[in-house]
């Protein structure tokens, strides 16, 4: 053995050992924490993580799915986020539960769903504020896709399909809200597709869910495509908000229902009831509408279970104002003449 190798071999050994220690199981060399089925079952992904599901992410940082996660029990949540500014990259993989759906039908055909606290693909508790889930799929989870019980969270570039309840849901009480929900595909879930408050809901496709497409309280619902859901396409609730530039079609209920939002530049067509229903609930302050294109070519008696109207004015006279012309089956809509607000 030369002097050189006598000197270097223990040195090399120490370097290799140090490198191995610097990259323990579950941690990629670049510091992203990896999540796989085996590591989920083993536990210890973060300090608070117990063996099995849910995987608990209790440390700020970046997490990466490295394979599909399979959750066999409908009542178990796959991943819960309990630390702030966690970035969970599903990396194209799927969180998969046991709920079975007939994808030829709507989401109300799904079976195997559960009620209760567990069974979500991703559960974000309040301390999980400021985080993000993106870039993968959640399919067949017992209770639903994602629950946001926090303030300030982003869900983007997700496919959320065939889950046992809502696709994306926030309980919506207290200080919860301020969510960015964008560029997701939310289809065939058993209940509402996207049900959030105080949020920006943008550029999503919401299709064939078993209840309303989007229910957004005090939110922007912008540039979404919402079709073939069981019930209302976009429900603006009885609170204010903005519903703009959406395509809303072939839902079984009204296309857009809101008593007090600003409703602009939407296409609402061939929904089972009104294309635009401004009589829904008691509005907080009144609605504005303009630039919408409302279309329903169905013959009388072919309009589903409810009225076959293009639009329904507010229940209270003078509580909606047409800020620009709207078209109804190719002609100008004919809303009732509103009063003018005078100064005191």
């Amino acid at each position: 053995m030369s002097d050189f190798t006598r000197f270097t071999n223990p040195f090399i050994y120490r370097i290799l050992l140090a490198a191995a220690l610097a990259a323990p199981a579950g941690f990629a060399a670049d510091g992203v924490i990896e999540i796989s089925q085996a590591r989920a079952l083993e536990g210890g992904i973060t300090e608070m993580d117990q063996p099995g599901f849910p995987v608990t992410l209790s440390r700020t940082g970046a997490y990466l799915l490295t394979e599909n996660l399979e959750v066999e029990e409908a009542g178990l949540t796959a991943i819960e986020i309990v630390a702030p500014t966690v970035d969970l990259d599903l990396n194209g993989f799927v969180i998969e539960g046991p709920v079975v759906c007939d994808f030829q039908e709507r989401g109300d055909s799904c079976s195997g769903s559960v009620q209760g606290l567990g069974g979500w693909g991703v559960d974000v508790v309040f301390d999980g504020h400021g985080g993000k889930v993106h870039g993968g799929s959640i399919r067949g989870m017992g209770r639903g896709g994602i629950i946001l019980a926090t303030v300030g969270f982003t869900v983007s570039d997700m496919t959320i399909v065939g889950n046992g309840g809502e696709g994306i849901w926030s309980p919506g009480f207290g200080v919860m809200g301020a969510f960015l929900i964008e560029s997701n595909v939310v289809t065939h879930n058993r209940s509402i597709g996207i049900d959030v408050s105080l949020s920006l809901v943008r550029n999503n496709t919401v299709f064939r869910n078993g209840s309303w497409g989007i229910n957004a309280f005090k939110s922007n619902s912008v540039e979404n495509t919402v079709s073939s859901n069981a019930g209302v396409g976009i429900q603006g609730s009885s609170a204010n908000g903005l519903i703009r530039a959406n395509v809303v079609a072939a839902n079984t209920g009204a296309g857009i229902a809101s008593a007090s939002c600003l409703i602009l530049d939407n296409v609402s067509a061939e929904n089972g009831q009104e294309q635009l229903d401004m009589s829904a609930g008691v509005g907080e302050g009144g609605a504005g509408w303009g630039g919408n294109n409302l279309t329903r070519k169905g013959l009388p008696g072919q309009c589903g279970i409810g009225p076959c109207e293009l639009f329904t004015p507010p229940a209270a006279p003078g509580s909606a104002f047409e800020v620009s012309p709207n078209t109804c089956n190719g002609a100008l809509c004919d809303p009732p003449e509103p009063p003018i607000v005078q100064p005191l």
Partner: protein
Amino acid sequence: MAILFCGAGFGHSDMKRQTTASTASFFGGCSSGFFILRALLIAALAAGSAFAADGVIEINQARALAGGVTEGDEPGFPVTLAESGGYLLTGNLLIESASTTAIEITASTVDLDLNGFTIEGPIVCDFEERGDSCTEGSGGWGVAVGPAAPGSRVHDGSIRGMGAGGVNAGSTSIISAVTVTGTGGTGISVAGGIVENCMVLVNHGIGITAVSAVVRANMVARNGGFGISAFTSNVLDNHVMGNRGGISQSGPAVLTGPSVPARIHGNVVADNEENGIDCGSCTVLDNAIFDNGDLQLNMRPDGDGAWGGNNLSCCTDGSPFLNLFSVPENVHEVAPNSCNGARCFDLSGI
């Protein structure tokens, strides 16, 4: 040197042969030298080299403390990015002092990918309250882009608890998909550029300040100052909620004047404590403005503005006309506006 030159002159096939031989005789002569080189390379990569395989320069806590991320980068914070190119965070950065900046960009056309990680400072906030509950800080930004570094991009990660604020871009930059929460000052400040798809939440001061910028599709909530303060900017499709004030057209004193416009379009502005939208020479179109504590829309008389297509709602438990809007005669109604479900009076609503 022995490693480099013992096999000098071998071609690719020779190299392959030497490598194979080295696996058979780990501790022997020249072939083991080549293996050593490979081992050192592998070890260095595993431990977090400064350079990723694609040439992106990696930044993590250890490398920040060691210095030398770029030429001239001193040990500790701030990490100075003095060369154009791509940079990638490979771990969270923890900043202990509220007066210390984490990353300072001094070269043009730097791409800083936060890669899902968080730059974290010491400011503490109560996330059940508004940002004025945060400790006020100063001096330390998450990312500071120098005035001579145009064309930079900061994206895809989080900044939390920094003393002065999240991102301070002193030259034209793109800030996208960045979450800035719980800082002691301003969330994001840009002088030229684009701020889009960002979450700006519970900061002590203003959420986003923008001069000559596009501010689009951001969630701006519960900040201790105005949600968005914009000057000669295009403010589009944002959700501005629960801040001290909503959207204000204001800017540096040296630039203020009656003739500099801003465009405010398609935003939801709600539940702010003071005015919803407060501008001089703005064009205010198609916004939903409601439940703000003072006026929903205050068009100041210091500029020639325009408004149309907005829905203003407030205070239905009292007078339906109180706290809706103030619009001077030099502001033109380019399309009708809705006030509590009726047409707003054309000039002044209070």
